[in-house]
C-alpha cells in the first residue's frame, strides 16, 4: 500500500491535520456486498442493543427495577414451592413410605375365620424378597411393652423393623442414630425412641448409652441409640427396634392381631406387576381358599389436589401483577426515550439501517434489558431459595433439598423476555416511522 501526505491546511494551526491517504485501496472499486449476511445482521442487532443498554445503564437500571423484582418474586415463588413441595413429599414418605411401597399382609381364608401362620408367612416373604431381589424391605411387627421408669411402669408402643425402614420412611432423628445391620449382634438390643419417651427419660446424653428395661413375655435391657424428631400431637411413648429382638421380646404373635405386615420398596414402573405377582405367589403358597393382599400404600396412590397449588397461584398472581406494572413502566420510559432518540434513529437509517433492523434493534434493546433484569432477578431468587436460613423456614428438616428448579429459572427468564418484547413493541413501531432527513435536519 502506498501512502502519501495530503495537503496541509496551513492557515488554521489548531485544526490543521496531516492525513495519510491510502491510494491503492481507494483506487480499487469499493467492496460490494452482494448478499446481506443474516449472521452479521443478527449479531449487529445484539451489539446495537447491548451498546444502547450499556450507554444508558442508569436509565435502564431504574426502569428495570420493577421487572427485576417481579422476576425475582416469580422465580422465588416457584423455587420455594419446589422446596416446600419436597418437604411435603418427605413428610408423606415418612408416613407411608417412598413410592412405590407395596404393603403385603398375611393371607386369610376367604371364609374370614382363620389367618395364616405367622412363621409360614415370614418364610414366604423372605423367599419373595429373595426371588425379586428387592433391595429395601422390612417387616413391621407391632406390639406393646411395659417400661419400668423412675415414676413407675408405663406402656410403650413398639415396632420391629429392619434397618432399611430408615431409608424407606426417611426416618429423621433429633439425636443419635438410626438402627443398623450390626445392631443385630448386640446382646442388649438397640432401640430408637420417640421424643416423648426421651423427655420421660430426662433427655440423657446418648453418648452415655442410656438403657431401658422392657417387659413382656420376657424382660430385656435395651440401649437407646437414637431419638426421633418430635411429631405434632404426639403424646404416647413409642420405640422401634430390629425384628429379631422384637420377636425375642414379644414372639411373632398371631397374624389375626394385625400386628405384622411387610413393606417392599420397588421401582414405581414395576409396582403394578409386582403387586399382582406377589399377591398371587403368596396366595398360591398357602393353598386353595387362601387369599393374600399386596397393595401400594405410599402417598402417591392417594391422589387428591396439590395442597401447594392455591398458595402458588396467589403468590404467582401477585408476581404477575408486579411484572405487568413493571412492563407498563418500561413501555412508558421506552416511548419517551424513543422520542428523544429520533435524531439518532434518523442517523442510523441514513447509514443503512433498514426499517426492520431499527424495529428489531429497538425491540432487542428492550428484550436484552429485561433479560438482563431477569438474570439478576433469577440469581437473587436462587440466593434466597438456596439460603439455609430460608430453607429452614420454609421446610425444616428436608433431607433431599431439591436444586433450584430449572423450570422456575426458565419461566422467569421467559416472562422477562416476553415483557421486554411487549414493552419494546410500541417504541419499535414509533422508531420505524421516523422520517430520516426530517429527523436529522430538525
Amino acid at each position, binding site marked *: 500500500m502506498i501512502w502519501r501526505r495530503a495537503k496541509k491546511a496551513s492557515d488554521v494551526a489548531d*485544526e490543521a491535520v496531516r*492525513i495519510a*491517504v491510502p491510494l491503492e485501496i*481507494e483506487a480499487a472499486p469499493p*467492496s460490494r456486498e452482494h448478499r446481506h449476511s443474516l449472521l452479521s445482521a443478527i449479531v449487529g442487532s445484539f451489539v446495537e442493543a447491548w*451498546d444502547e443498554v450499556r450507554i444508558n445503564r442508569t436509565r435502564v437500571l431504574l426502569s428495570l427495577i420493577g421487572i427485576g423484582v417481579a422476576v425475582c418474586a416469580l422465580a422465588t415463588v416457584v423455587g420455594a414451592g419446589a422446596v416446600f413441595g419436597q418437604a411435603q413429599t418427605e413428610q408423606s414418605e415418612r408416613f407411608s413410605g417412598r413410592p412405590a411401597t407395596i404393603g403385603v399382609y398375611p393371607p386369610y381364608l376367604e371364609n374370614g375365620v382363620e389367618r395364616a401362620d405367622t412363621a409360614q408367612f415370614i418364610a414366604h416373604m423372605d423367599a419373595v424378597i429373595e426371588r425379586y431381589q428387592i433391595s429395601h424391605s422390612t417387616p413391621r411387627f407391632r406390639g406393646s411393652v411395659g417400661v419400668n421408669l423412675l415414676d413407675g411402669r408405663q406402656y410403650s408402643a413398639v415396632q420391629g423393623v429392619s434397618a432399611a425402614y430408615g431409608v424407606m420412611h426417611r426416618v429423621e432423628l433429633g439425636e443419635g442414630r438410626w438402627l443398623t445391620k450390626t445392631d443385630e449382634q448386640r446382646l442388649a438390643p438397640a432401640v430408637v425412641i420417640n421424643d416423648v419417651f426421651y423427655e420421660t427419660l430426662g433427655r440423657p446424653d446418648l453418648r452415655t448409652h442410656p438403657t431401658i428395661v422392657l417387659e413382656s413375655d420376657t424382660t430385656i435391657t435395651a440401649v437407646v441409640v437414637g431419638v426421633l424428631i418430635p411429631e405434632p400431637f404426639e403424646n404416647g411413648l413409642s420405640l422401634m427396634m430390629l425384628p429379631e429382638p422384637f420377636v425375642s421380646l414379644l414372639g411373632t404373635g398371631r397374624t389375626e392381631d394385625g400386628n405384622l405386615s411387610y413393606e417392599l420398596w420397588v421401582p414405581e414402573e414395576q409396582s403394578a406387576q409386582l403387586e399382582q405377582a406377589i399377591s398371587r405367589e403368596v396366595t398360591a403358597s398357602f393353598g386353595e381358599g387362601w387369599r393374600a393382599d399386596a397393595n401400594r400404600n405410599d402417598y402417591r396412590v392417594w391422589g387428591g389436589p396439590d395442597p401447594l397449588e392455591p398458595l402458588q397461584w396467589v403468590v404467582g398472581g401477585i408476581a404477575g401483577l408486579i411484572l405487568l406494572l413493571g412492563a407498563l413502566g418500561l413501555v412508558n420510559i421506552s416511548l419517551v426515550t424513543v422520542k428523544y432518540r429520533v435524531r439518532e434513529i434518523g442517523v442510523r437509517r*441514513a447509514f*443503512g*439501517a433498514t426499517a426492520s433492523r431499527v424495529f428489531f434493534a429497538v425491540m432487542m434493546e428492550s428484550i436484552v434489558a429485561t433479560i438482563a433484569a431477569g438474570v439478576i432477578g433469577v440469581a437473587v431468587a436462587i440466593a434466597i431459595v438456596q439460603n439455609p436460613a430460608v430453607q429452614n423456614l420454609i421446610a425444616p428438616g428436608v433431607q433431599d433439598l431439591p436444586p433450584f428448579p430449572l423450570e422456575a429459572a426458565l419461566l422467569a427468564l421467559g416472562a422477562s423476555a416476553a415483557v421486554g418484547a411487549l414493552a419494546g413493541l410500541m417504541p419499535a413501531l414509533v422508531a420505524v416511522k421516523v422520517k430520516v432527513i426530517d429527523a436529522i*435536519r430538525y
Partner: protein
Amino acid sequence: MPLLSLQEVTRSVELPDFSRLEILKGIDLDVEIGDHLSIVGRSGSGKSTLLNLLGLIDNPTTGSITFDGEPLEKLSGSKRDRKRGRDVGFIFQQFNLLAGRTALENVMTPLLYASGKQFWRRRTLASEMLERVGLGDRMASMPDKLSGGEQQRVAIARALVRSPRLILADEPTGALDVDTGKTVMALLDDVAEQSGAALITITHDPNVAALARRHYRLDNGVLHPIDVRRMLATSLPEAAL
C-alpha cells in the same frame, strides 16, 4: 454511465385541502464517479427534499432516478436501505454524532449495518479511518470533548468508513467558524478525491460551493447550473441566495 442520474424528477405532496404542492420541478442531474458538485439554495427551496431523493431515502412523484444504471423505483425499501448504507455517505451540518459513544464507536456505527469483513473488522476499519482524518489520538474521546472541527472530522470518517461511492454533505461547514470550515472542506475534498467518490455539497455558503467543480442553484424547486465564482465576484453574494 453516470453513477447517479435524475431525469425529469418531480416531487409533490398533498396538502390538507387536497391541493398539491410541487416542491421539485423537472430536475435533471447526472453525477459521475469522482464528480464534485455543489447545490445552493434558500431555505424552503426544496434542498431537503432533493437530499432525500439523492440519498435514496425518498421516491420521486414522477421522473426516474437511477443509481449505477439501476432504476431505484424497482428496489424494495430494505434493498434501498442497504444500498444507501453501502454506497452513500452522509455528512450533516450538526455533525449528528451519537451521544455517549466515543469517536471510534461513532465511526463504527455504519459498519454495524455492513456484512462480511466490513462488519467483523469494524473496529480496525474505524480506527484506520480516524487515523486518516488525523484523529488517531482522539478515538476514545466522547463527542462533547471534541471541538467542532474535530466532531466534523469524526463525521467525515463515519461517512467514509464504508467506502461509499457518493458522499452527500449537507451544510458541512454550517456549524463551524470560517477557518475551521475551510480546513474541514479541504479534508473532505481531499479524501473524496482520493477515494474516487462523487461529492455533492448542499450549502448556503458560496465560498464552500465554490470548492466544487460544478455548481447548481435550487430555486423554487428548479435546479439551475450557476457560476459561483462570478457570484462571488459581485458584492454581497450571500444576498443572492
